[in-house]
């Protein structure tokens, strides 16, 4: 003979389990009917405390396939590494505008720029950057040349640049431009001249 209190406790627990299952099922159904708008992961950069400075950035123009020097005013920190990050973010802001001359995917961001010894810079891009990059030899090399030429013009002593995606090495940017090795800044400067001289 089962004691009465055990039978009662079992019945109450079963009712609770059934009730909770129904509640969860209703919650899931409500979620499926009203999906939340997907917000691209935005990189939250620290506020820049430095004064506004006029810098030269190299902006890619897809239509003629050119690289053009352009002056912009952005707040820049005094630290070399922070300056490099702010320069690239200033450049990306141009590409993320509505009427961009070289559109990049929504949410494209530079995670970090690391300036290490012997003139080496390592750029860490996010995956939205490469996923939104137009595939093509010229389109990809415009992106690469634009970033490296902007950095080398404003950060003296830069000799080689390596590009990572989400902290990892990647073979190509979007099927064409090679990211497996280092970019020699002098070669990119020569390429930028070719791309500007059209």
């Amino acid at each position, binding site marked *: 003979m089962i004691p009465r209190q055990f039978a009662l406790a079992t019945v109450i627990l079963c009712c609770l389990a059934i009730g909770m299952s129904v509640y969860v099922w209703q919650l899931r159904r409500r979620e499926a009917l009203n999906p939340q708008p997907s917000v691209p992961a935005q990189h939250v950069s620290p506020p820049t405390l430095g004064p506004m400075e006029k810098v030269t950035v190299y902006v890619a123009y*897809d*239509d*003629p*396939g050119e690289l053009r020097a352009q002056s912009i005013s952005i707040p820049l920190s005094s630290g070399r590494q922070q300056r490099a990050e702010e320069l690239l973010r200033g450049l990306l802001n141009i590409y993320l505008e509505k009427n961009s001359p070289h559109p990049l995917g929504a949410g494209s961001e530079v995670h970090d720029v690391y300036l290490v010894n012997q003139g080496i810079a390592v750029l860490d891009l996010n995956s939205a950057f490469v996923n939104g990059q*137009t*595939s*093509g*030899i*010229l*389109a990809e*090399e415009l992106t*690469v040349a634009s970033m490296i030429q902007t950095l080398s013009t404003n950060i003296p002593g830069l000799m080689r640049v390596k590009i990572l995606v989400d902290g990892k090495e990647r073979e*190509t940017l979007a*099927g*064409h*431009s*090679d990211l*497996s*090795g280092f*970019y*020699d800044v002098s*070669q990119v400067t*020569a*390429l930028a001249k*070719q*791309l500007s001289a*059209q």
Partner: protein
Amino acid sequence: MRWNNTHQDRRIQRAAPWLIAAILGLSLQWLLFGQVTPPPVGPPGQVSLTQNSANQPSPNQASPSQVPANQAPANQPPTATQPATGQRTLLIMIDPAHGGTESGAVLNPVILEKDVTLALARRLRQQLITRGIQAQLVRDSDGILSVDQRAVLANAAQPALYISIHATSQGSGMRIYTAMLPASGDNSGPFVDWQSAQSASLARSRWAQGQLVAAVQKTGFPVRSLAAPLRPLNNITVPALALEIAPTTGDVSQLASADYQQMISAALANGVATLIPALRTKPESAP
């Protein structure tokens, strides 16, 4: 009878080493020079001239081939420091980029870069063959090949020119690229650095790029020359170019049209045909 047999055996035994030596010598000559020719007349070490030796500068003449690669005149290829050893069987290797699951650029929902490059490569091969130029495709189906595999195939075949074909929706006309690496790579020893294997042939690649651009410009087709950080160009040990074809009307479907592909492949084949006399010379690394 027994005496005769023994006598014949001795004669065969005496002649056998000479016969074997002659066969080995002829085989070696065939392996080295591709054809059995009389030994060159001249001092040891001098390389015999070819059938088209009339077109070759004499060793005493100041020839463009003696100009360092980085100072080559615009109308002459930076090439051989020695006369050619034989009329080379010219092979143009055409590489339709991408393939298989690696489709390249999605030009529109139904046109993929890998399909356009393959169709264009086949037309270019046909155009070259009709001009009497031997041509071969790196891939002739929708198969997947890594860039390293493509480079290995090209380096093994040792073509006179390697052409990688790409297609894009951006821009207009054609872009012809050479590898983006230093002109003076340290590849003088027996082993070649894989990442800069192109460095020894870069001067000839740039010369071929200039000639091809000039030939295509004559047709009125928009064409532009650039360098590009593009593999496998860096890994190819022979003159190597990459072509990127874009529509001229802004309509991507033009890339898939037979007329457009035929026009481009004919212009390219004419351009490659102008390179042939210079490509026939034996490519030597620049000093």
